[in-house]
């Protein structure tokens, strides 16, 4: 029944070694021409963190903490996953379009291209998460038992990115306008996720529930819950099932579209 999903996943597994090695070259090629090299991977986000903290933390909140967590840390727990999500999603969606001319001449499954982007960006993500943990401890926020569910939410994050980039790399190759649309949407989602401001303070609770439809809401809130502690992932079963059903549906329709159109990708360039 879900043959297409199985096929896409099998292609990832059987080419896993290739994915890792291509990711290595991807990282290498990106900063080869810059003097500061891969240092830019950290300089860029640091500048953004400083700006957001200045505007939202000092400017709008006058440095007031959220609960008993300083705003700066609260924001970091959302921004660091976002610095992984946003570029990976956009690059992953563009990956087939930008590489198809190169790989279609070979016996090479295009479905691994988005995964290569996810893997190549995740090195940076894991480093930044490690830095975040160190910063938290330096501020005296020690990890509790809740930290173990971080593994679960990171799995959620990767599963969703995988499903979404399979679908959207196909769409983006067929209809170029989609990539533009996605860029604007991602810019919008930064403000519609609990990253820079506390959504629970909205005057109408139903508004927050609408924001919760955004799957990144689930992931970012979950990661924050694991770091601060206080809430288990199974405490909200409806939201959990919603997230996974959505991920599966995207993977299902994405795999279907990918397998149907991939022979003709070159015709749409």
């Amino acid at each position, binding site marked *: *029944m879900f043959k297409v999903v199985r096929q896409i996943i099998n292609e990832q597994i059987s080419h896993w070694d*290739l994915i890792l*090695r*291509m990711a290595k*070259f991807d990282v*290498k*090629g*990106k900063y*080869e*021409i810059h003097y500061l090299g891969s240092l830019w991977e950290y300089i860029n986000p640091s500048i953004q963190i400083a700006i957001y903290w200045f505007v939202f933390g000092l400017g709008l909140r006058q440095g007031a903490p959220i609960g008993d967590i300083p705003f700066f840390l609260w924001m970091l727990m959302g921004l660091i996953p976002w610095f992984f999500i946003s570029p990976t999603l956009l690059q992953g969606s563009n990956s087939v379009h930008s590489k198809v*001319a*190169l*790989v*279609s*001449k*070979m*016996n*090479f499954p295009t479905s691994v291209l988005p995964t290569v982007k996810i893997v190549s960006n995740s090195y940076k993500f894991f480093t930044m998460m490690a830095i975040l943990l160190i910063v938290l401890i330096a501020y005296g926020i020690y990890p509790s038992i809740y930290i173990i569910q971080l593994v679960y939410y990171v799995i959620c994050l990767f599963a969703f990115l995988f499903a979404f980039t399979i679908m959207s790399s196909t769409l983006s190759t*067929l*209809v170029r306008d989609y990539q533009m649309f996605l860029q604007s949407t991602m810019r919008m989602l930064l403000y519609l996720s609990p990253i820079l401001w506390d959504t629970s303070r909205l005057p109408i*609770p*139903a508004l927050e*529930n*609408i924001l*919760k*439809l955004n799957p990144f809401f689930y992931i970012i809130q979950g990661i924050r819950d694991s770091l601060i502690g206080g809430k288990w992932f199974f405490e909200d079963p*409806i*939201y959990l*099932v*919603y997230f996974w*059903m*959505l991920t*599966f*549906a995207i993977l*299902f*329709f994405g795999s279907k579209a990918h397998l*149907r*159109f991939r*022979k*003709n990708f*070159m*015709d*749409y360039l």
Partner: protein
Amino acid sequence: MKLKVELNNVYKSFLMRGNQYEKLLELFSIQKKHKKNQKEFLAVRNLTFKVYEGESVGIIGLNGSGKSTLSNLLAQVIQPTSGNINIDGETSLIAISAGLNNNLSGYDNIEQKCMMHGIPKENIEKLKPEIIEFADIGDYIYQPVKNYSSGMRSRLGFAIAVHTDPDILIIDEALSVGDSTFADKSLQKMNEFKKRGKTLFFVSHSAAQVRKFCDKALWIHYGELKAFGETDEVAKQYQDFVTWFNQLPQIEKNNYKREQLASQKVPYIKNKSKLQKETNSSSEWVINLFVALPVLVLGLLVVLGW
């Protein structure tokens, strides 16, 4: 001798679209009364030929006659609109824009391309010095490919492609930018290929080059197979045609071209659409619904704050 490549009534057409919007409609195969003047362009039409193991075939023709379309079809980069292509073995296409990563050095490109061809790591290490020696571009091998001259680029591309050991090698005018010393070296390599029973396609608009490299020639003229056979014979026909064409007055030349191009434009017929339409059976709709419906229901529950 073993049959390597077989083409049966192969057509490749490109829809001459008015705008992006029509492309979108076509993509989702939305039934729409297409305009009467909708045309499609037959880049290649009714190609039928067989190529055996160990043969080297030159593909000649004027600019825009469909040579590159044919080489892309042979490399399985694009799919035919109708007809079928049977290829026994791995193909490798070398074109001037050889698909190298511009930001990486030549050295890294060697590794990446070999890797993408599915060559195991140990073999890549063994191949690297051979490829570097064959490409013969000196210390530039450690420079990013974007600093290469077009000659260096095609040398590297050619060197990698021949060392990945394909069964069928398609060379799309890649050698025309190399100098004669490199061309000789390539010729040697290609002869070695033929001896090992591999099949070669060599795309060129120059009959002289084809004479030098190939046993057989295929003349493709405005999308049609004009002649296929021994190189000398076909090359002679082609050269006779070129001489005849060149002595025509300019007006007649233009008329001739216009007539030929007009014959390639045919009214668009829906059922030849290049997307193989899947029959959406009702059971498939049930599955689609089965996947999509829970998302909607659960989404509603989340909004209602359950």
